[in-house]
């Protein structure tokens, strides 16, 4: 059997060979094996230098200053640090947070924990296309609101929120804005200052970098206060203790730089492939696109195939590697809470698959995918006939 076609880039991207080469160089160089905090010797300073270079690369991608980038283990840790850190730091100002029902679990779970600690959280319901409107945020604000946390791009359906408008509102009301940009950093233009973002989470493994490394942008002017989650040796301005993983950080920096260099070409090429895929899939009877038709990233397509059980379709598509939804929810046979929040029934949500394309997807891959999905949807519908 030939290798299956990978269409799960939104879950994780393969490491770009150019990133792997730079990481390997780091791991092979004795000089770069020093502790980046050991600035008293040459090896430590050499490691620190490549780390600071990567910090510039990541900062450039979001319009931040290098000193505003804090290294973490990934977007999940960044989200935890941003939410728990800021909400607890500003607890004397107020105890209310605004977020949405379609956030990633890495935001929803820390918020649940904060609720148990006595904080109040309003979860906005997006419209049927997955969009949270600025008016909803305005109406939810109270004098007690200290933080708004919204994702830039939804990981299941790919819709893009109007972060610029929400940022302007937050700034006007002196409320902090945290943005989970795991799916957008490196893919969409982001300017944290122009968009009035105070905290922004991103990760390497969604942009062809290694797993296990991420970053949190923390605004410095005026400074945003955070209570650290991990304390110890005082690294990262005391906000995140722990010896910095030089090769991971270098990989993240290179991946981000490549993402920026290739963004326009990659975006246009992947948009074309996504449109071709949708054009093929929508010729199958009874299919529907989940999420907004146009406010979406090029690489994610979430489609409901009515009358087909999702797990069976996923398994029947032996030629394809893809997901029914967020990888983090795998193991649960509950319908996607994101699709449920858009008003889809359990059965509609269970009939949906997420196709996520990437840098290494080809025209031929899309042809194979359309053919395989058409074949298996027909087969499974025939198998189910008209059972109620």
């Amino acid at each position, binding site marked *: 059997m030939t290798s299956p076609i990978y269409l799960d880039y939104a879950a994780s991207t393969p490491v770009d060979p150019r990133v792997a080469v730079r990481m390997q160089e780091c791991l092979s160089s004795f000089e770069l094996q020093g502790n980046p905090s050991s600035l008293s010797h040459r090896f430590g300073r050499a490691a620190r230098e490549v780390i600071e270079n990567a910090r510039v690369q990541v900062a450039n991608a979001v319009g931040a200053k290098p000193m505003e980038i804090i290294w973490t283990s990934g977007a999940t840790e960044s989200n935890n640090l941003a939410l728990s850190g800021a909400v607890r730091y500003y607890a004397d100002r107020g105890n209310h947070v605004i977020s949405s029902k379609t956030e990633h679990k890495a935001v929803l779970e820390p918020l649940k924990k904060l609720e148990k600690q006595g904080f109040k959280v309003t979860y906005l319901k997006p419209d049927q296309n997955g969009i949270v409107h600025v008016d909803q945020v305005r109406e939810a604000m109270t004098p007690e609101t200290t933080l708004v946390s919204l994702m830039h791009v939804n990981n299941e359906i790919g819709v893009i929120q109007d972060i610029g408008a929400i940022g302007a509102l937050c700034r006007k009301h002196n409320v902090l804005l945290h943005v989970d940009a795991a799916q957008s950093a490196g893919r969409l233009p982001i300017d944290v200052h122009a968009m009035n973002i105070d905290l922004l989470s991103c990760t390497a493994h969604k942009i062809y970098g290694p797993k296990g490394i991420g970053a949190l942008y923390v605004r410095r002017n005026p400074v945003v206060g955070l209570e650290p989650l991990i304390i110890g040796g005082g690294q990262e301005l005391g906000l995140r203790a722990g010896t910095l993983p030089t090769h991971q950080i270098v990989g993240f920096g290179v991946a981000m730089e490549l993402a920026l260099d290739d963004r326009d070409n990659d975006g246009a090429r992947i948009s074309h492939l996504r449109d071709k895929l949708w054009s093929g899939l929508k010729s199958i009877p009874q299919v529907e696109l989940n999420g907004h038709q146009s406010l979406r990233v090029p690489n994610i397509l979430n489609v409901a195939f009515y009358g087909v059980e999702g797990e069976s379709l996923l398994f029947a598509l032996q030629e394809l590697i893809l997901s029914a939804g967020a990888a983090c929810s795998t193991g649960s046979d509950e319908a996607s809470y994101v699709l449920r929040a858009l008003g889809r029934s359990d059965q509609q949500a269970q009939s949906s698959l997420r196709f996520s394309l990437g840098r290494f997807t080809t025209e031929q891959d899309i042809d194979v995918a359309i053919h395989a999905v058409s074949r298996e949807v027909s087969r499974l519908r025939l198998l189910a006939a008209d*059972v109620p």
Partner: protein
Amino acid sequence: MSVMINEIISQFDYSSAVMTRFLNPHHAGEMGSSTNVRTAHAGSRERGASIRLYLQLKDIRVVQARFVAYGCPHFLAAAEMLCEWCEGRSISELSQWNWQSLQSALEIPSTKRGKLLLLEDVIRKVVRTTMEPVPAAVATKS
């Protein structure tokens, strides 16, 4: 690896017995109504699994079994295997069928037990139909 992770993986790790039957079922399809065809339904799409089972009888034996079903790969493979088992059996043997033998043969995880119970429901229901008189409309048509 922890027990929990193994359980999660097993939910998506289909045995070769499941793969074969799910990808290439020989008993999928409907049967037209006739005096010697008995049928029953169990489950619902809303609950994630639904099956209609058809048994063609000759005297007291099943000569052919067919199903149409909506559900996960484990459920569809189990429906296929149930049909395989039914063919050649007598009606009284059908009443003795239980889901446990099928669970071990197909290596179906315990989290899917509810779906297997639907198969027990459908076979009990179809056996009950053999004790009922054939509906007049069907009797006339045949």
